[in-house]
């Protein structure tokens, strides 16, 4: 169980990393470089910070919504690098979610699951 202060710190981290990730997409619109390594590192940090406070999954929803809201903006800018960077973040987001959900399945086993049995 995390203490209240710790949760505050983690939330703060999460907000910062979320902000930085989105900022990075915006930045990459102007520098026109994919900045792949930076994106990935930042995304991993964001994901890890998000996971710590995300027992309810709400933070991830917020971030997902921000993405969706941002999307028309990037599409309308219509510059390939903008779209590419946005798409890359979505890709990371998708991969992390799939990994996270698979991890849950493997390690957080519910009581009994009878595989190979028709429902």
């Amino acid at each position, binding site marked *: 169980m995390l203490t209240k202060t710790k949760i505050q710190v983690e939330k703060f981290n999460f907000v910062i990393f979320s902000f930085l990730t989105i900022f990075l997409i915006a930045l990459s619109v102007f520098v026109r470089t994919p900045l792949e390594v930076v994106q990935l590192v930042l995304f991993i940090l964001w994901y890890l910070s998000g996971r710590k406070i995300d027992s*309810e999954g709400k933070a991830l929803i917020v971030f997902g919504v921000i993405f969706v809201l941002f999307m028309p903006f990037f599409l309308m800018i219509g510059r390939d690098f903008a779209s590419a960077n*946005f798409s890359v973040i979505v890709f990371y987001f998708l991969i992390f979610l799939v990994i996270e959900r698979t991890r849950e399945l493997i390690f957080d086993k519910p009581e009994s699951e009878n595989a190979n049995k028709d429902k």
Partner: protein
Amino acid sequence: MGLKRYQKLLILIPVLLLAWVTLVNTFPEGYIYTSGDFAQPVNIKNIFHHIYYTWNNRIGAGGEGGFFSWYPTLPYYLFLYLLPSMAGLTDSQILSFVFSMFLFLSYVSFFWMLRILFGKDKPLLQSFFSLLYALNLTTLYFFTYTWGFSHQVFLYIPLPLLIAYFYKYLRSPNLKSLAVYLILLGVSMVGFGNSAFFFALVIFMGLFTLALLLTGLVKVTKKFIASLLALGITSLLVICVWLMPTLVFVNEGITSLVSGVFDLKSWLDSQSADLLSIYMGMQRYPDFFPVKYGFKIWYVVGFLPIAMLLIFLTSQRKIKDESHKLSISILLVGVIFMLLLKKSQPPFGDLSMLLFKIPFIPALRSYEKVAIFMPFVFLTSLYGFIPERLKNSAIFLIFILFISTAPLPFYIGGIQKVYSINFAKKEDYLTADFSGLVKVPDAYKDVYDIVNSDPTVTKLQALPHSPLNTIAWVNYPKWKLIGVNPTENYFNRPTIAQNSSMYVLEDFNPTQSLNTLNIPPIWYVRMLPYFNVSDIIYHFDVEDGFIVQSGSKMEELERQNLIHSYFENDFIKMYKIDSAHTLPVFYAPERTKVINGKIAALPYIFSLDDYSVNQQFVLGKSAGVLNETDIDYIYYPVEEISPMDLSIEGFWSTDWKSPAADYNPYTIQYRLRVIKEELSLAKEKNPIRKIQLKLIHLNKRAYELSKYNLIDSHESVAAYTSSLDETIEMLSGIPTEARGRMYKGLVTTTQSYLLRHYSEYGTDPKLRELFANSLKKFQEWASEISDKNCSDFCYRFTVNKPDKYDILIDNKSFDKNVPNHTIDKLTVVTNNGNEVVRTVELNSLGQVNGNFIQIGSFEFEPGTPVRLNIKFHETPNLLIGEEWLEYKTFEEDTSGIKLRPQLFGAQPSKYKRIDSWISNTRYAVSFDYKLNSGKAAIALVEDIVGKSKEKKILDIEQIPTVRKILFDAVIDRDVSVISPNNDGWSTYKKTFTSSEDTVNGYLFIYGFSGKNNFSDIEIKNIKVQKVPDPKIIIRKFNASNQAKIHTPKIEFISINPTKYKLNITDIQSPFYLVFSESFSKEWQLYRHEENILSKTSILGELFETVGLDKVASDKHYIANGFSNGWLISDEYAKDGKLELIVEFNAQRLFYIGIVISTAIIGLSALYLIWVTVFNKLRKNNADKN
């Protein structure tokens, strides 16, 4: 509540919408669809049987002439094309039918899949949701790109059901699921017409099984392994009809199927899709709706399923039920497939490319093979995560309907009429230059009956060579056609494509050579017998320039009675080849010739007088099978290796461009860029590409020096000079024997780049000096590597047998009006240049042999390189008239005002026409000049016949470069053969080659006038001369072969394109049998005892050759450079007679495959019927009881 009440009614909405989509996208009457690699199979009633001949699969796309083989896709063309056609539907109505069936069946398949995987309790939601599978940006991509109307993307339809039953069987193995799965797999086989789809499916299923194990939906038990094994074996049996013939082809070249015979990396790069395109469902989103048509914001709609998926994935607190796990399993595979789709695109493109190093993965190199799975992946996993509260929401249903409008053109109409990859925004199928929907001109139809009713027609050769993009397609701008030629289907005999070539791997294209070679065209007609051609179909609907290139040659052939025209209209002219120049598809040659060297020399060899129709020619590498004493002639075509000259084309080459991005060398970005450059250079293994890369870097360094004025920066200067040194080092590193034409081109390019640096970037005097010094350095190196003994026109060759050889030279290099011809001297040199064997004074030449002149016979030692040097007399000056004419852009006469294009801005110019201007010919321009002040230039201008008939500037050579060198006293540093005399005059000489479709040439001179200064240049002795381009052939006559081979009589009948029966009589000695279809080891000869020409039983034909003896399978060789040849011993004959069956082995396998596949599918169907009936009976009995 309301929803449930109207459920049965509402469920019809998607179906009605699909009907609307079909209705609103009706295709215009009279039009057919052809785009790129797919042409609608018109005239299907008459050509349908060709679809299942496996042989055609080997030749269909090549230059050999044949119908497409779509043997695994038979049901597709039967149900979607043949039956509708027999029911009376027109070609355009069939398009609508195919379109609607694709959408409806996709919808049904997905709907059924949802019910199997996720239960049957939400029919309304499932019905609406399935609409997204039928109408999305991927299906829009299919129908606005090339493949929608073909079998290529058929797998999209059964895929959901196939995966559903695969899963159902794995979860709970039972016979019923297996039977349904096997039937579905049989149906899916239609999609394996391109084998890569099969590999993609296998990889998908393999990964999906692993994902199911990972997510715990299945577990490894003995039962599971046994079930999987049973599934694998029965699956293989079901696909036998496709697999067995396909394996034969895989066996012939597994690399072509799974790794590719071409440059895989560049193909993968070209097929990479960025992530946004992957989410949207198309390869390059800017090329398709919505971005292409300015509906950019509409992407939001297309993106909504992905956005929903992300939100639903995050909002699930815990993965709990089976549907969640299933969705995750599918998504796991989906993520890997996304990596395979994006390839070299960000993020981490190069890393993703490593996946293609895994065996079999390269089969997924093209976009569609993987992309076809993505809508299923995204939509199925999305459905699995829809929260319960939304599943009964009317708003959510409306929202889904809204998402289905992402491919808006489906709803508003205009597929292929307005929305098509073939034309730009604001164009349509009527206004664009090229279109997917085309109307075959009525004029074409006039010729079909004539040709089809003529029994003497064997194969048609289409002409002229006229590709505008790829040689696999045709381009008929007169009726907007671009792609595979659909009209070939109207003829019942095969048509040999006009742009493609059976010698494509040998770098020789006969139809192209007919256009471009400046030699009498008789060679072409002499070549056609070996392709089994009887008639030529000449197209006038190609771009005009190609008619200019070939028209006069056709007229000449007609004048010489080698071809006879028998039909002509505005679109087509038909010729019958003179019977003296035809051969049956099977013949026994009496003469044999061997060509040691490039087959591209055939036009010259076929111009010789030693030609006879009943012969075969065999490339040196295939000649091992032949009896040496049977060979009449051996030819050694030789290649010119003349010293390098800097031609004008090299200087103004189109590959030159200023670097696109540059950085100030004082920035960090620049340092990073340099590191990236070094890495890319280190990674490049191909030495030629490495040099090309280095040259780009050299240009960048020169540009940076100039742009940032860095002449005083020691580091930047060193970067430039070391780049040049490394280039020279790389060029020196190429071994002498590998220095062919490509190498010569690279040296010329480097020279021209350096000259370009000097002329364009040498703004500062110090910088100019640096560039001039670099040029000098390179020139010195280039002169060192030139072969000192190789002067004037130089050729090199090696013979492999000691004997007497004739040297033949083509007579176009001789001017008949000059008594001692134009050749001054010919020198034959051996032993690496030390020993001069003979110098021939050419005052009295040998006999004229066809279009060649025999220079003499010489003894050569095998293995020793022989060099020929030819020195020509000077050829006449071709500039017409004494006076220079003034080029006026504005002229007025009695007919009114004429405006001509400004050629050189506002500079006044004078010109002379060049006499005897011939396309694709080498010329030299030379003059002496003295430049006193200002700038001046010369230019060569050509009249090109193209679509627009506009004049095109070929090349402009600017004298300012030369002038600057003069005054800077660096005259000896220039590479352009400047030889300054004491009196201040310099000589200028360059060579160039005229374009392939040019009709007139002009030499222009113009000066640049500034505000206060005028150009002051004196020019004398200006000349344009034809540069001789002699072709040399070395020929050895085989003295031991004095007589022709005795040839037996051959009678044959064609059973089908994969089977022939031969009755050979009068066999007295071993003989050669040539069969003019492309070489394949699968063609086999079988000996039969009885007279077989009269046998007609259809069933008997299928397995007739089983158990028969093979004949001469170890003496099977490539004849005529592409076809089948056998050396048959007379021991096989009985009383001088031999009955043979010639069969393509893969077709036998196809027949066996049909039996097995049909049996398994039939058994599965019977089992299902039995189970259903049995269950029903049992249920009825139970009800009664």
